[in-house]
Each structure stands twice: as structure tokens, then as C-alpha cells.
């Protein structure tokens, strides 16, 4: 399997400045994340709000400048590139956003929105397409995402959420990218529309050999579309592995709790099921954490967790976890007995 992205110890810290008299505080949105993204796969990044999953996606394509770490794309260090070079590389990785209402410019026609990446690269002198060819490409893209090519002269407000998300996908496909970073692409959509978009993403993947980094908080969706899953908590990956092993044989107590908390649309199962109820809220990512970031909510905590942050280590082939007590966790049964 060819590696497309290789991310090493990536950090993105934001400095929060209060008044001039206060010491600035550091928010560790992404705090030492390492992973590889392989060609043709779907790697999902899951976690709760504030865990840093969106910041991770934005930082790995330098929409945010990383504080520390390395980002390799096809063997090239993205951090060594100047801005112009970086923009040229960006045709290889495009993004789809969560909110189909905010991510399309309301003053541009659908045609102009989808054509914009092409126009930009044409202006760089990197694409020699005539006006007519660009228009043909836009029509072809709209058709490909299930919209009528006749929509080119319409405006985003004339479309429903699902249709807008299709427009966003057409725009992301315009430059034939290799990787698409999908940031909660179906979270804002109704369930009957959500599956239409998921099917479209899967069709496009197999047809165009796309690689997806799929960011989501919806564990049910992630289960069905991912080859691999990375679970994030407080800016760190706490578990990563094949989707199937994450869902059926998880090593991290946080992953276990997340999975047990997803409501099942089946009253009989739902009533029988025991949830792992975590205490408290996700702690603030501001400031330094001593020991394991999950220790305050963990139900398997031991004394070492207070002191030492567990590193992310490969415990079985392809299955990484950052937990001192992963073996206990693995045997831990939802119902509360081992």
C-alpha cells in the first residue's frame, strides 16, 4: 500500500491572550499526532467536539500552520514548501465542509463555484483550458455528483442541504485530487439525505480511486464507511486500527464508552443494553495535562495514569492504543463483568 500522507508528531497550539497583564495560555488543539494515510483507503477520525479532529485536518494541509511536527505528502515535506509551491500541491488534496449553507458563496452561481478551482489553476498557468472547456468540465462534474448540468446559472440558496453538499463535492473534485478531507460532510443533513451523500462519496471513491480522511462524531456512520479509524481525545490519538477491530475489540476505555453510548434504533436492544456512563465533561484543552489525558473520566484508572502519559503504541498488528491498562480494557465487558 502506497503512503500518501505521513504525519509525524504534529502539534497545533493556539496561544490565548487575555489582558496584557495575564500570562498567555496555550490551547493544545493537536498535541503530537502521528499517522499515515494510505492510497485508496478511508481513514476516519472520530472524537467529541473540541478533541482537535477538525484542526488536525486543517493543519495537515497547512490551512493552519503547525506549531511542530512533520507532514510528508508523497515523499515531500509540505513544511519545506513556500506558499506558492504549497498552493500548487493543494490540487492533490481538497476539502469538503460540514455546513453546506456556510461553505458556498451565496453571491456566486453554482457554475462559478465549481469552476473556481479550475480558474485559479488556469491563472497560475498550470491548466490550459479554454473557457468552453472549463464550462464542459463543470457540467460534467455536476452530472457526476447527481445534479443537473442546467443548474450552472442558479445560486446556492435555491438548493436544499443535500444538493448543496453535492455542489461542494463537485468543487472538491474539479482538480482531480488524490485525497479528500471530509469534515463532518453529512452531519448537517437529515438521515434520508445523509445516505444519498454517503453513497455518492463511496461511488466516487471507487471510480476515481480517491483517498478519504473522514472526520466525524457519528460512530454509526463511521463504522460503515471506514477501512481504519482513529479515535481522538484532547488533541491526541488514543486508539487507531482497522475499523472492525476498533468496533469489536477496542483497547481503549474511551473508545469502549463512546461505542456503548451511541443510541441504537431498536427499542428491544436499547432497553437491554448497558451504557458506560462517563463522569463529567470533556476537559478543557487549555494548559498542560499531567499523566493520561483521559484519567479524570476513566473507569479503569490506576495510579500510573496520574503520573505518566501513555504513548500510542502498536499492541497488535495495525492496532495502536495509548493506555496503560489496555489489556484490562480489552477484557472489560460493557455489562460490567470481566
Amino acid at each position, binding site marked *: 500500500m502506497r503512503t500518501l500522507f505521513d504525519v509525524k508528531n504534529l502539534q497545533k497550539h493556539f496561544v490565548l491572550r487575555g489582558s496584557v497583564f495575564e500570562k498567555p495560555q496555550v490551547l493544545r488543539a493537536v498535541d503530537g499526532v502521528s499517522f499515515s494515510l494510505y492510497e485508496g483507503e478511508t481513514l476516519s477520525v472520530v472524537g*467529541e*467536539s473540541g478533541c482537535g479532529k477538525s484542526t488536525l485536518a486543517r493543519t495537515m494541509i497547512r490551512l493552519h500552520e503547525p506549531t511542530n511536527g512533520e507532514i510528508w505528502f508523497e515523499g515531500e515535506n509540505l513544511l519545506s514548501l513556500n506558499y506558492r509551491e504549497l498552493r500548487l500541491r493543494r490540487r492533490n488534496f481538497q476539502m469538503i465542509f460540514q455546513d453546506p449553507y456556510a461553505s458556498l458563496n451565496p453571491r456566486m452561481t453554482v457554475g462559478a463555484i465549481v469552476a473556481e478551482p479550475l480558474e485559479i489553476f488556469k491563472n497560475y498557468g498550470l491548466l490550459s483550458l479554454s473557457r468552453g472547456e472549463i464550462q464542459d468540465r463543470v457540467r460534467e462534474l455536476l452530472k457526476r455528483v447527481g445534479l443537473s448540468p442546467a443548474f450552472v446559472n442558479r445560486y446556492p440558496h435555491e438548493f*436544499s442541504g*443535500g*444538493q448543496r453538499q453535492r455542489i461542494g463535492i463537485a468543487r472538491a473534485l474539479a482538480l482531480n485530487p488524490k485525497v479528500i478531507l471530509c469534515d463532518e460532510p453529512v452531519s448537517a443533513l*437529515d*438521515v*434520508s*439525505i*445523509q*445516505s*444519498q451523500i*454517503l*453513497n455518492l462519496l*463511496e461511488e466516487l471513491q471507487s471510480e476515481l480511486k480517491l483517498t478519504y480522511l473522514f472526520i466525524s*462524531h*457519528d*460512530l*454509526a*456512520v463511521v*463504522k*460503515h464507511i471506514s477501512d481504519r479509524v482513529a479515535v481522538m481525545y484532547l488533541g491526541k490519538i488514543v486508539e487507531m486500527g482497522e475499523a472492525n477491530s476498533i*468496533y469489536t475489540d477496542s483497547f481503549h476505555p474511551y473508545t469502549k*464508552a*463512546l*461505542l*456503548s*453510548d*451511541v*443510541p*441504537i*434504533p*431498536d*427499542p*428491544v*436492544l*436499547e*432497553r437491554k*443494553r448497558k*451504557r458506560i*456512563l*462517563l463522569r463529567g*465533561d*470533556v476537559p478543557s484543552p487549555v494548559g498542560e495535562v499531567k499523566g493520561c489525558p483521559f484519567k479524570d473520566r476513566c473507569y479503569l484508572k490506576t495510579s500510573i495514569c496520574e503520573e505518566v502519559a501513555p504513548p500510542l503504541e502498536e499492541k497488535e498488528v495495525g492496532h495502536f492504543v495509548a493506555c496503560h491498562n489496555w489489556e484490562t480494557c480489552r477484557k472489560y465487558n460493557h455489562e460490567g463483568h470481566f
Partner: protein
Amino acid sequence: MANNILLQVNDIRTVFKTDDGLIYAVNGVSYTLGRNEAIGVVGESGSGKSVCHLSMLRLIPQPPGKIVGGEVLFEGKNLLALSSEELRAIRGNDITFIFQDPMTSLNPFLKIETQMIEGIMLHKKVSRDEARARAIELFHRVGISEPEKRLAGYPHQMSGGMRQRVMIAMALMTKPKLLIADEPTTALDVTIQAQILELINTLRKEEGMSLILISHNLGVVAGMTERIIVMYAGYIVEENTTDEIFAHPRHPYTVGLIRSIPKIHEKREGKFYSIPGTPPNLLNLPDACPFYPRCDRRSDICTKKMPPLATNGQGRFACYHPYEE
């Protein structure tokens, strides 16, 4: 049986005036709710599930909204015909509401304490100290630590999950007979959602309340309710016990909705199931089944007349070509 009925909704209809014409948001919704009963109202955006329940308590902005018909009998009193004063004596007292967004439902300028005790002081003859004691008791029950400190604070000092706990505590201050929770956990993370749902469930049983849980998430509703109402385009299209809705859905929309949900406990075979098309435009809704353009069981009659909501055993459904039991 009659005094076991807490709420009876008869043919409620709400429209909104816009520049493009009338939007038919709620188109004749009728149902009854028993004492201590928990029902779920599910549907997608635009199905009228929220507007219907806001209309029942006359909480929609009028204009542009207008309740054009129906009655809402709460313990025999028609909420739509009461004077504002009489209505206020019930709303916020016997019936309370939890809204979706914990970030905007609290007033950022007022201390939590002021907001917590405002309602009960208005409705019940209690002293400030008694009200405060009730607030502290409820904060303990909903799992807010250091209640005294929290009461003295402001909403921005709390996380989303914490604010939603405050909203729940606030809704319970007056020991209501009916709690209407409109997407109470949609803005929350899944681990917090689990805590909040568990909490609502426990408190409901302890306090002997009825619950109307409005949600787009069938998973959330499945574990929390005894009966489910499915809404589409401002109509009730199906109603049944929670078990029956999932085991034997009759209306094609309900069937499609259940099949569309990605399920964490199942393996997927083939593509994700999806209902083709998009929800209807509520401007000038014709007299026809609102679901027919997306339905694979439709025939001529579906395009000509809205199917009546027929009673069938313990359930109801509005479809000419229902799935078999």
C-alpha cells in the same frame, strides 16, 4: 380512562405567511397523551414536529405564524382558547419545555440563580429561600457539583452539557405534569447525550411526569419512549407503540426512515439505503399524500387525496398502500 388523559390535541393547524405565499407547517395533528406516558415525535427538518408543539403552547411568533385551527386540551382546558394570563399559569408551571440549544436558551446577562428561581417564584407561593433550596436540590439530582457556586455564576462559565443540565433542572423546578423536550441532546456529544438521556428518564419516573420527546434521532427515541408519532410535511403519518413502530412499521416513510439510519449494531450489505428525492415544499401543499413523490408504492389515488389517518389496532397510519403487519 378519561382522567388518565393529560393532553388531547385535536386537529391543530399552523401556517406561516411569507412573501412567496403560505407555508403549511402543521396540517391537522391530533393525538392524546396519558399521564406518566412518554411519547416520541420523530421526523426530519421541516416535518412540523417542533412548530406543532410550539403552537400548542402558543409560542410561535404571530405574525408571521398563525394557528388557524384546532384545540389543545390540557386537563380539559383548551390552551388555544385561554387568556394569556390563564395560559401563563400553565405554561412554565404544569408544562415546561427544554429546547435544543443549551448555548442560546439561557440569558447570558443574568446569574444562573435568577434564571432558575424566576419561574417558580412566579408560579408558586414560595419564598426566595425555598426556591433556592429547590434549585440546589435539583442541581444535585442532575449531577451539577458545587450547586451554590454554580447558582452564583453565569451561563458562559459552563460547558454545553452543564448548561443542558441547568435547563433540565430549570424545567423541573415547578414539578411539571408534562415536560416537552425538543431535541434535548442534539447539540451534545455522545457521552454527554448518554448522561442527559439517562437523567431525563430517571427524573421522569421519579417525578411522575409525562414526556414528549421531539427528535430526529430514532435511536434516542427508541430507548426513552413507549409510543412514537412519525411526522412528515406537517402531518402525522404513523403512530404506534415504540416496539411496533420498529418491529412492524406500516407507512413507507417510516420504513424508509428506519432503513436509512446507519446502525452501529449491524453489518451493512451493499449501499446505504436512502429515500430518493427531497422533502416536499410546504408552500401550497396539494391535497395528496405528501410522501408520494418519494414513494415506491404509490398509485394514482395517492396523488389525488391525502390518505386519512386510519386507526388500526393500537396504532394509526395514513397510507393507501401500507406495508403488511
